[in-house]
């Protein structure tokens, strides 16, 4: 299960992020870059946590040749069903030697299953599904469940559905299936074998196209719903993505940290966030949440110290319209960058209510939203995201400096722009 899997980022990231990251990998490799796909899987995605499963059938040599180029010591599992052709067993030895594979492991059925279900060795005749189950599915499941993922030699052309096989898949039990040969056609396989002079299965040239003890050559395709790996589980995980932000501003900030971007540079923030137990009548340099202010309006107005106001999504800024002048700073809270309510709050405060003090963004403040915030009247940014800090410090925000809408208090260069257009006001 995911909780016990040694996947390197299974623990630290929520499922949807991991699933998204894995799906995204499918856009990053050329269709035919099987080596690149496998190398990424072995070195980046699942180091020391990836199994290779091979049937040592007619086409298996291509994947195994790619495996050998990445790491000859990778574990390669072979289903020794006890029902193989002797030629296949000989072929296993040939490939171990030719390709230098040092870690080929035979998976055998549980003797108890054999004794119980197939004592006379004829189960394949009477009930082939069950035969496959005890000889292939069970041993394979037992093995791959110890890994974060496994590599298959499946190819798109083998599947009936149109183009359903990606390079990387996430299975419903949260494992990664890697299909380096997903885009290989039958002809590509033949060409590859010829190009590298790879040894053929001894039976291949005798007319056997599909070699194994069951009609299906790919153990991985055995008994598997063709759609099982098609990100089906992802839908529900992707819905309702909620940014799991629980308030950096809820913690008092270290005075030395230079997190506040103001007037073109980072400075230490003189303000701190509201904390449980604070007294609205006596706090200083604190952003008081809007509902707290409303409940303690008289006390705050009588507080002799500089204080700020924290406006969170859902707060009605109309209610503090006449009190804004009291605050040295108004913080617009963006608890998640996808929550855009703060933009409306900022515009109302800056444009409609004419607030003159510091208007800052706090929360999930990211490089790509900073220009939008600035256009809505926000002048100061409390930044915790390191790449954003760097982008701001280096003056390298990726922005669009031209815009169509009249927004904010930007001056209009008279006569130089058609109606809707404005030039940017630099952050």
């Amino acid at each position: 299960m995911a909780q016990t899997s040694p996947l390197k980022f299974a623990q630290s990231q929520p499922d949807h992020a991991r699933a998204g990251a894995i799906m995204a990998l499918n856009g990053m490799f050329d269709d035919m870059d099987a080596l690149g796909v496998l190398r990424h899987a072995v070195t980046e995605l699942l180091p020391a946590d990836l199994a290779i499963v091979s049937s040592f059938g007619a086409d298996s040599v291509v994947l195994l040749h790619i495996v050998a180029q990445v790491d000859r010591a990778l574990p390669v599992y072979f289903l020794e069903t006890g029902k193989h052709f002797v030629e296949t067993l000989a072929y296993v030895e040939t490939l171990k030697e030719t390709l230098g594979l040092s870690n080929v492991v035979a998976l055998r059925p549980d003797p108890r299953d054999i004794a119980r279900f197939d004592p006379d060795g004829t189960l394949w005749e009477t009930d082939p599904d069950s035969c496959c189950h005890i000889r292939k599915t069970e041993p394979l499941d037992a093995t791959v469940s110890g890994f974060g993922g496994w590599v298959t030699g499946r190819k798109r052309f083998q599947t009936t559905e149109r183009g359903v096989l990606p390079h990387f898949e996430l299975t419903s039990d949260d494992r990664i299936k890697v299909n380096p040969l997903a885009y290989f056609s039958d002809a590509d396989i033949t060409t590859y074998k010829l190009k590298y002079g790879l040894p053929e299965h001894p039976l291949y040239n005798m007319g056997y196209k599909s070699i194994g003890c069951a009609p299906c050559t790919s153990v991985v395709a055995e008994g598997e719903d063709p759609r099982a790996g098609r990100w089906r589980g992802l839908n529900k995980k992707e819905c309702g993505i909620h940014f799991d932000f629980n308030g950096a501003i809820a913690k008092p900030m270290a005075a030395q940290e230079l997190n506040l971007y103001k007037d073109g540079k980072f400075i230490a923030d003189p303000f701190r966030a509201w904390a449980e137990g604070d007294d609205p009548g006596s706090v200083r340099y604190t952003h008081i949440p809007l509902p707290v202010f409303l409940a303690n309006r008289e006390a705050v107005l009588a507080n002799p110290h500089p204080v700020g106001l924290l406006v969170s999504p859902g707060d009605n800024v109309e209610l503090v319209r006449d009190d804004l002048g009291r605050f040295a700073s108004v913080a617009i809270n963006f608890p998640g960058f996808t929550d855009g309510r703060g933009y409306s709050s900022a515009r109302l405060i800056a444009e409609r209510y004419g607030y003159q003090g510091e208007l800052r963004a706090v929360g999930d403040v990211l490089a790509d939203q900073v220009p939008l915030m600035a256009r809505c009247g926000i002048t100061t940014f409390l930044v915790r995201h390191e790449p954003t800090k760097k982008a701001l410090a280096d003056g390298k925000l990726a922005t669009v400096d031209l815009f169509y809408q009249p927004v904010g208090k930007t001056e209009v260069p008279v006569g130089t722009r058609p109606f809707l257009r404005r030039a940017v006001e630099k952050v």
Partner: protein
Amino acid sequence: MYRYDEFDAAFVRERTQQFSDQVRRRLSGDMSEDQFRPLRLMNGLYLQLHAYMLRIAVPYGTVSSRQMRMLAHIARSYDRGYGHFTTRQNIQFNWPKLRDIPQILADLASVEMHAIQTSGNCIRNITTDQFAGAAADEIIDPRPVAEILRQWSSLHPEFSFLPRKFKIAMTGATTDRAAIRFHDIGLQATTNDLGEIGWQVWVGGGLGRTPMIGKLLSGYVAHEHLLAYLESTLRVYNRYGRRDNKYKARIKILVHEEGIESIREQVEAEFAEVKGGVLTLPQAELDRISAYFAAPQYELVNARSVDVAREKILNPFYGRWLERNLNAHRQPGYVSVTISLKPVGGAPGDATDTQMEVVADLAQRYSFDELRVTHEQNLVLPHVKVTDLPAIYEVLVKNGLADGNAGQITDIICCPGLDFCALANARSIPIAQELTRKFESPERQAEIGDLKIKISGCINACGHHHVGHIGILGVEKKGTELYQITVGGDATEKAAIGDILGHGFVAEEVPNAIERLVNTYIARRESPAEPFIAAYRRLGKEPFKEALYGAN
């Protein structure tokens, strides 16, 4: 057509550079997929089942031959030789590589195109009547206002992170061909007591898992106040639209839960603050934009119409095409031609690079260099001389584009479904393909007449199944793809949501089920002049329910 000036060109260039930088940071790992996601979405880049999908904006469905050739180039160079035209008059490519995206966007920018805001929780492409500026039944050409709305909504800083996506459709004609009652905002041209032209504003329509017909928010908003009125509406939505549940985040739910009167009150209060301010649209600017959409230099054509009856005798295929695929034009001697992307057995809305080149050539030669994309996933040559029709038809025949089935049972709207889409529960393209095969015969289609089938592969309803005369919705039940059939939907000004008549069917049963509905209609209609939807309204559910499930 609208032409970019230096400002527009620089804007798109900057945006392309900005997104290229974001792609670079994503590829280098500086940005997580979670952070990249909303940014790529706002640039039209989805992550689908197998690969990225890039959706390119075709503002209000208007495209030049040069632009269409660039789309062909993209299909050929970065994709797999085809593109897919969508119900929002856009085009999407299903197989681009992330690292090619910056180059694709740069190529697009060179022909004044982009993918800005074709996805994400922002204001999407403004759609309109595919016959805008050409239709005989038009009060006003909606495109100048659509272009102004496009500009106003592009990278709007306040409305880039709305609770959910926001779709605006508008029509200047009396017949609604843009499904405006099923959009977040629908704009319908109208006249006030003084005879001045302005806009009716409909709000809260939509499909998806909770289909709703838009409600009238304002009976008349003048051109000059339209931006202020829309900004007020969007602000109310941005502040109060639900964000706790993705499925309840569209404005239709806000309108439904709060009531249209309450929403109107809030919008009017906001409008009172904004009205008359910087968003007031000067007549000079409207005139300036309108000049781009001035009528082309029509020629005097001697022939005023085509004798369809005669052509049908001479060449039934051509005759049927004339009968189905022409739309009346305001200019005598001209027509608008629908180029069907619904061949028998094809994927609805798909066009190959070669076909895109061919229609680009036709537009350049015969239609003042202009093409339209329809929300029904076809293409249109808007301004064609009747005397040029034979030559056009000949070219279309050679390129597999001459199906004379516009508005008929094989002219199906269909989402990409489980073959491409990560959200889908069921396949939809194969269902459409089977249906077109089932009803392949032109005589049979003519007998059936106007009948719109719309297919969605999941409850999100990208294939508009709720408003199909017959709608088909793919669902998944215990690992099986089932198709629920609805009847009686209508996307036009007679807006209606289809009725579910009973349980779903497995894929193999769908064509026969549809045929039973069709046969019931034919048996029960008053005359061939009574279309399916009218007969359904008159007869009610029962006969059709019986056709699907038998008498009980």
